[in-house]
């Protein structure tokens, strides 16, 4: 049985000024599944990913045509509160970006912003999120130490914990493991595998094997177009389009 779509783009066009960055994208992403975005540098993966939590709104000259639906609701509709949207749709970036605060404060940052002061709730959420992000055992004895003292791989999992703490239903990840060594990278992949039981995950990656391992669906973008969108298994064994085949077999250009 097919699960309902969590996220959907309908005839989506995106522009940076005159530059047409995304061209008529139509795609529906399944709930509690992992979708990977692949494609050459500059094809629009990050731009597309950022439309799901309206991170592009801050960029001068950026505009979209078309719709992005979250649970069937248009997130660009006038009555949508962007902060509320971001509680629902968390994001993890390529470079781990912990704040220069303690580990604990990093994790509960989003809750504090929401005005939550109850110590017990903060502590419980902190532990739960760190456990979910598979880093609890490594940091439980130094929650008051600076997050900046963690390794890159630990910082990235901390950022994932921070994203989980606000209890989103969607997590966007833009090359979350590209700056990490194979072991930390494997931990992130394991984590994604665990998280998809509860979350809808969209991940941008340049690592084909990683896309193959972690995702259920793969979308291949090329020059602002969605060229092919299919089950990952199909994409990596018998892709439809020559451009997809050339890209995933490393024979591009």
């Amino acid at each position: 049985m097919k699960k309902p779509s969590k996220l959907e783009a309908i005839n989506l066009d995106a522009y940076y000024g005159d530059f047409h960055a995304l061209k008529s994208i139509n795609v529906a992403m399944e709930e509690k599944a992992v979708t990977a975005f692949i494609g050459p540098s500059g094809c629009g993966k990050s731009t597309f990913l950022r439309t799901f939590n309206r991170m592009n709104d801050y960029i001068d000259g950026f505009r979209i045509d078309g719709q992005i639906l979250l649970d069937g609701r248009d997130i660009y509709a006038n009555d949508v509160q962007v902060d509320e949207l971001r509680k629902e749709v968390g994001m993890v970036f390529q470079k781990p970006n912990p704040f220069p605060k303690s580990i604990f404060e990093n994790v509960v940052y989003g809750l504090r912003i929401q005005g939550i002061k109850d110590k017990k709730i903060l502590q419980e959420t902190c532990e739960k999120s760190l456990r979910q992000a598979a880093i609890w055992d490594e940091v439980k004895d130094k929650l008051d130490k600076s997050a900046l003292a963690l390794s890159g791989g630990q910082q990235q999992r901390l950022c994932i914990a921070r994203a989980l703490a606000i209890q989103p239903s969607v997590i966007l990840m833009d090359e979350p493991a590209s700056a990490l060594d194979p072991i930390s990278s494997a931990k992130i992949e394991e984590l994604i595998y665990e998280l998809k039981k509860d979350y809808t995950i969209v991940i941008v990656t340049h690592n084909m094997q990683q896309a193959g391992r972690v995702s259920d669906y793969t979308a291949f973008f090329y020059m602002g177009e969605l060229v092919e969108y299919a089950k990952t298994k199909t994409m990596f064994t018998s892709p439809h389009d020559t451009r997809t085949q050339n890209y995933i077999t490393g024979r591009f250009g």
Partner: protein
Amino acid sequence: MPHIDVELDRLRNKLLEMWDLVEYQLSSGREAVVNGDKELAQRIIKLDRKVNNFDIKIDRMCENFFALFNPVAVDLRTVLAILKINTNLERVGDTAEGIARFACKLNHPLDPELIELTKVLVMYDEALAMFTECRTAFKEDDPKQAKALIKRDKTLNKIYRKSDAVITKYIKAHPDRIAESLALLSIIKKLERVGDQVTNMAEEIIFYREAKVVKHRRKKKKKE
């Protein structure tokens, strides 16, 4: 040429070399049967070791290729097909060796009537032709030729199905030629196997070529 293509070419060429060797075994088997050439038969039997070495070598090359290149899509299917064709070629080699062993048991000259009745040489030629065409289909990446040759297996099966009755009848009329008749029957059975093995290889060629649907589908409806 990209590195991955250089490696794939090396693999393909190794397989084609093995294909040549097995083809030599199989066609020499026909000669050994027709001419009662026991020396040739012995040589065919000895070649089995060389074929086995190819088999091991190609297996190892594929394993390395998987480990180092993480192939996907058409590359993945090609190496999977090479692995399976390798296994089947090794078996055709075994079958050719078996034919050579029975060739040693034949007393010469063979009775032309028996050859005529069983159609063993017609069968042999058909099997050889299938085998050679399959090699060409692989070399030229030609699934059409692969499909065409699979159909030829019918001829082999037809001759094979009649062979029991034909030989039984012949033995009744020539009780002094039982050993020879049975050896020939065994050869017919081996040739039937060759037909099946070549069919398997042809199917692999179709698989690795055609799962690659390189239809350049452009689903574009650009919004103005």
